[in-house]
């Protein structure tokens, strides 16, 4: 399952990332925020318009907004 399909609430672990779907600076920005292989995340909110874009995910004690296009590059497994 990719991250954009994760339901709101449950925690999941990022098990694979298709870096080719992400621009270099985006990938670097995500990694700097700790959104990387092995990270535990949960979806907290979805945007209102256009099919729930962007997404707000919680990682550690942080909330980070990102687009669905980024989430689509990440495979997650619910914990």
């Amino acid at each position: 399952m990719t991250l954009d399909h994760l339901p709101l609430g449950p925690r999941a672990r990022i098990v694979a990332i298709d870096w080719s779907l992400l621009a270099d600076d985006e990938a670097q920005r995500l990694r700097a925020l700790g959104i990387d292989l092995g990270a535990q995340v949960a979806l907290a909110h979805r945007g209102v318009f256009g099919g729930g874009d962007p997404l707000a995910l919680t990682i550690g004690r942080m909330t980070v907004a990102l687009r669905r296009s980024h989430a689509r590059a990440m495979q997650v497994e619910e914990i």
Partner: protein
Amino acid sequence: MSNFRTAALVGNPNAGKSALFNALTGARQKIANYAGVTVERKSGRLVLPSGEPVELTDLPGSYGLDATSPDEEVTRKVVLGLFPGEAAPEVLVIVLDASNLEQHLVFALELIELGKPTVVALNMLDLAERDGLTIDPAALASELGVPVIPTVAVRRKGLAELTQAIAEAEARGPSPRGPHEFMAERRLTAQTIAGSAILSETSKHRLHARLDQVLLHPWMGPLILFALLFVVFQAVFAGATPFADALQGGVDWLGVQVRNIMPPSLFRDLLTDGILSGVGSVVVFLPQILILFFFILALEASGYMARAAFLMDRMMAGVGLSGRSFIPLLSSFACAIPGIMATRGITDPRDRLTTILIAPMMTCSARLPVYAVIIAAFIPARTVGPGIGLNLIGLQGLVLFVLYVSGILGAMVVAMVLRSSLTKGAASGFIMELPKYQMPRVKDLAIGLYQRAWIFMRRAGTIIFTVAVILWLLLNFPRAAPGESQVDASIAGHVANGLALVVEPIGFNRDIALALIPAMAAREVAVSSLATTYAIDAKGDDATAIALGSQLKAHWSLPTALAFLAWFVFAPQCLSTIAVTRRETNGWKWPGFMLLYLFALAYIFAGITYWSAVALGL
């Protein structure tokens, strides 16, 4: 005794660096730009217990030394001593958010690795306690090998201890630290260290998560955002009026005083008609700009601004921008200058440039006087009695609404075109930390407002002053022969003759051409210069508008008036906007482009409006 003179605050965004900086340096701050980039350089004087001053700089927030934005690039270069003309700070003060240790320690570890004299400020301890965290600063200090000082910047806690630690930092020398680690290892180390420093963690339900449940709620969220925007706009437009009127009164009073004191001379005219009225016409916007900035600063400090960006991101993505462009564009409805200044928060340079280029199309408050006069004169008040500005309902209000919407639509189309041509590039995406909610502090707001006001006044005092003088010279030289009109004899008069030929096809007469020249300083000047042209004694605003209205009706056709309105939707007639664009883009290339494309659009749409109106027999 220490013998260093520079120190820098460095840390993740949202670590409370600015509040700590304000608390340490007070209002004695210097704001400038780093050479060659539009990143704000904030520095101030910190006085050590010995009485010795230190220059403290507040480096832009960064997640690490691998830069992805111009801000982060500055932080990286300054910390490493690579920034030309900037001395590397001798002491690093790493600011950590105590309630987000795992994340903030990653950058801290990278900085400690550099081996510089370092002090850690464990900031926002109150927020950590609110989240149910108990942290042991001593354990953290022994793990990191550098002093850790608990601080609550907003309550001035731990400041003396932090200053003392900064004073002792250099004597203690470089911080010892293990071998270089890569990002992934550093993250693991950070988690281990955070784990051993956090003594206990109760699962208190966190306040910001509960607030987000409401503020980011699928339908309540946008509703609250729009209600908030409504309040902000009401405050900006209604709240500023008495202050703006008072300022205008002050400027007029000064003019009268100068006329009373000085004998009539060209120099007196320069003072009153050139400088006072020119600079005055811009200074009267100060109250609006301050009220707008008050809200922007307060919303930013509270953490809500990032939520507004989140809520609006999808809509902005439709034209190739991101949620980060929302606030600058919103500010531009009051005035494009603070709007363009606010684009510094946009990380992607192409997004930022696009936002700057379309910002002048948002209907700013300087257009309202122009719109109000023309609408009141030419559009029949079908539903209610003649009102001016926002009180309009019915046909007049509809026209005003159409003008606003035309600007927004124009901006959207231009953004789309630019994003697929000149500012083409992979969609920048939208990756943004949503910071914790906090109560904004009055002192930080006051410092921020003071700085904004100062920047604005300095600009009014330099650029706008110069322009006002030049315009006055153009209108007053060469001197007219007796019996001849001064305006016709002047350089501006001759330019207007040439300009009249250019604008004739779009239905503008020579009077309009003449009014457009001084209106380059600021749009609303068009009204006063039309009043001058039609020889109307400009006393009270309403009286002028009514008298001017009947004059306009006598001299202009309805298609001409409509074309004039369409012109002002696009025309970049605001030198301050051009000046601020030059500063924010570091050169004349983009302001030049902005002038060209906006004048082209203004010409085309005024023309289309004029010819359609003529064809419809209006």
